């Protein structure tokens, strides 16, 4: 046993060191004899005050430090974040696809493969050019996702903490809770409804639960409504997050709950006209109980909240470890994909362009290059604190101003998060510290609770298919649009009409294409062309420590 443990530790160390060992010789490349041009996509999120995404200090920095060294011209092409597929279609129609095509959603990249946008490539050649990148894929068991129908199409970027993501946090009005006699944030449905009704009755807020219109993809996630143990075939058929599963029992439970909250007067009757920005304003103005967002060193909406409500007390919503069988809720939650960007390559890219793109990916994976690209220039974009950790200058607005979220849309080709030592260091670096309340300890504790729930087997990863799914491509837009219409009607109907209406809409939804989608998924699952469900449990997790 002792020997086995020693071997295991040695193996773990070896796996950890492999990327580092490889990186020593990774960039021993010869410059190209003739200049090679590669084009890299970068999201344009349309945010004000962000430098031109195609040409800025940091694109020039890449050119000077990487491109010029190897005789490569690196160009960037802006991809509107809200219109990705259309933009790529337009580029394809104009025969102007970038050298690299990348996206987070697996169905999108498999669609590209099916539509002939991408070329297959030899993973061994990739490994020779980009050993650090390749070894990291091996170490994280990502190679399985790089193939479609047995052919290699993708390289997979790394997503640290993909199954214990802590970066999105929900903030609630702890002061309101205290006013109605709660000294903790409710997690179970019973507690939550009780607290909301008390807040409403006390006249603190007219519609404490607020609510906002759903956006389509990723809306109405029903992971915590799935009863355990979960049937794997059902998971494969309905467990997706791109097309909402109207007609599946967890969705029924979720919408019935929404219907209840609406009819109880907790949800704003205008929620379906409320954008996320409106909801944010409502939270800042002290009209709603809860608002959630990604944490970062500079959270302008939290700053605005405290300015508008200087005496308010906020808390973050804890991780749920409880089974509430009566309400039909469980600690189950969705994990991210075990990869960041799925990176494919233009069907017309030449051998040199392919090599140059791989060099670009490898070069950005090198620790010192990645660090500068993620943190910027010392004294300008960041400073070291007393512990020797980098701290971003959140209001920096000078010549080296970085793109959205610290250049994320550039370095996402290799990794999904900024690295800075331990998880405690990372969380500390990614939270604001100049607010009336500091949430660092809370978020760190939250992360460890999440780890405990994950370790207990409650993390649910969606099924991924190694074959292209024609019905998904055919019906996704139509179904997500139809879903928005149906779910709002279901949310707002009288409680006694809910069941009949749900049955009717579920039937119509199935006929509109959802049946074809689920049948196709089942066929792929039965043919062994899908991933499998992780281990699951039905044990509660005690997070009261």
């Amino acid at each position, binding site marked *: 046993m002792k020997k086995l443990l020693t071997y295991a530790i040695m193996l773990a160390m070896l796996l950890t060191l492999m990327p580092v060992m490889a990186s020593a010789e990774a960039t021993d490349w010869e410059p190209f004899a003739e200049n090679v041009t590669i084009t890299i996509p970068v999201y344009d999120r349309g945010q004000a005050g962000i430098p031109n995404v195609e040409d800025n200090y940091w694109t020039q920095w890449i050119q000077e430090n990487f491109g010029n060294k190897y005789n490569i011209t690196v160009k960037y092409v802006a991809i509107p974040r809200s219109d990705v597929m259309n933009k790529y279609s337009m580029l394809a129609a104009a025969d102007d696809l970038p050298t690299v095509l990348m996206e987070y959603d697996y169905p999108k990249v498999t669609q590209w493969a099916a539509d002939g946008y991408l070329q297959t490539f030899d993973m061994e050649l990739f490994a020779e050019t980009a050993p650090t990148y390749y070894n990291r894929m091996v170490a994280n068991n990502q190679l399985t996702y790089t193939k479609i129908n047995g052919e290699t199409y993708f390289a997979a970027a790394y997503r640290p903490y993909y199954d214990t993501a802590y970066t999105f946090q929900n903030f609630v009005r702890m002061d309101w809770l205290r006013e109605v006699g709660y000294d903790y944030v409710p997690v179970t449905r019973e507690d939550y409804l009780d607290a909301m009704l008390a807040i409403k009755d006390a006249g603190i807020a007219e519609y404490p639960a607020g609510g906002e219109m759903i956006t389509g993809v990723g809306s109405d996630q029903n992971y915590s409504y799935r009863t355990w143990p979960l049937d794997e075939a059902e998971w494969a058929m309905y467990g997706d997050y791109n097309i909402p599963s109207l007609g599946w029992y967890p969705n029924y439970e979720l919408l019935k709950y929404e219907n209840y909250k609406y009819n109880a007067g907790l949800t704003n009757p205008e929620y379906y006209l409320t954008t996320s920005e409106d909801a944010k304003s409502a939270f800042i103005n002290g009209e709603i109980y809860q608002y959630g967002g990604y944490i970062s060193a500079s959270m302008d909406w939290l700053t605005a909240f405290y300015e508008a409500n200087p005496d308010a007390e906020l808390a973050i919503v804890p991780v749920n470890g409880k089974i509430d069988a009566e309400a039909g809720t469980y600690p189950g939650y969705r994990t991210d994909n075990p990869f960041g960007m799925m990176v494919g390559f233009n069907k017309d890219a030449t051998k040199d362009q392919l090599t140059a793109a791989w060099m670009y990916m490898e070069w950005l994976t090198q620790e010192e290059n990645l660090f500068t690209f993620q943190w910027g220039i010392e004294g300008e974009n960041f400073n070291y604190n007393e512990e020797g950790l980098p701290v971003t200058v959140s209001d920096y607005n000078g010549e080296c101003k970085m793109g959205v979220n610290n250049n994320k849309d550039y370095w996402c080709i290799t990794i999904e998060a900024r690295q800075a030592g331990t998880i405690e260091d990372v969380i500390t670096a990614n939270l604001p510290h100049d607010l009336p309340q500091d949430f660092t300890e809370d978020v760190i504790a939250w992360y460890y609770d999440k780890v405990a729930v994950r370790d207990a087997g409650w993390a649910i990863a969606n099924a991924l298919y190694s074959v292209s799914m024609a019905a998904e491509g055919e019906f996704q*837009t139509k179904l997500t649009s139809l879903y928005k219409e149906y779910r709002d009607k279901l949310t707002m109907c009288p409680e006694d009409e809910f069941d009949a209406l749900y049955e009717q809409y579920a039937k119509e939804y199935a006929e509109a294409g959802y049946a074809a989608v689920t049948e196709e998924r089942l066929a792929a699952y039965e043919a062994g062309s899908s991933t499998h469900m992780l281990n699951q449990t039905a044990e509660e997790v005690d997070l009261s420590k």
Partner: protein
Amino acid sequence: MSVRAVKNKGPITKTTWKKALTRDWHLYLMLLFPITMVFMFNYAAYPGLRMVLLDYKPAHGYEGSAYVGLATFAKVFRDADFHRALKNSIVFNLLDLLVSFPVPIVLALMLNELRLAKFKKISQTVLYLPHFLSWVIIGSVAYQLFKPSSGIVNVLLVKSGIVDSGIPFLTEKNHWAVTYLLIGVWQGMGWGSILYLAAITGISGELYEAAMIDGASRLQRIWHVTLPGIRSTIVILLIMNLGKIMGSNYERLDVFDNTQVRDYQYQLAIYIFENGLGNAKFSMATAVGLFQSMVGLMLVLISDRFAKALGEDGLL
């Protein structure tokens, strides 16, 4: 009394193309630019229409995409969503025509009767302004005004006790239809009146003088002089508007979108965008677009013949 009687016929001269070009070459040179634009944007894309016969995939191009004949049309015409969108488009465009077409005429007649020049100019400018506002702005302002419980209009109505609860101007399909159409009228009436005002300017002042000598009242002058004077303009614009019966304005529909009004708001532009462009089904989007254009063209031709049969000048 008819305007047609006073057509001014000048001396008949013969001009050859050569003469005209030598004399007015600079005018023709100026014309070259708009003609190029029209050719580029209205005709140069025509070869692309062949994608309706293909299962067009952008990465494969026209040559590499599979030929499917009329299968795309067959698929579209079988699609229940297409029927829903088509029905809504026709109904709403007819209603739009019914409501929006006469208003600019009435407005032009009213503006024409204004005697205070300064007031007339200011009124015209104010009425033209909405045309220059984008639908995005109009939509967001409309929601701020007409939201059922927090919209300013409803807040005022409820507070003043006129209604018990807010009117769902934009959140119930029948109310939505009325609001949608009226906002359309508001946005387009000023701009639409320009052509009529121009046509009214062309009416000879002598006719008004004669009418006044005959003792015609102001209303009678409008009815017997002004309206007949702009009749051919009305007919031409009506024919052109009939061609838009199959059309559909995506921006206008999109800004007034919400999940409670899809029954009416789901029109062809939305269908094309969601099922065609949004899903990269370019063949399908082109097929529906082509269908719209063909029907529009046929309607223009038929109404033109009809107008001519009634003795009007027509469009062509």
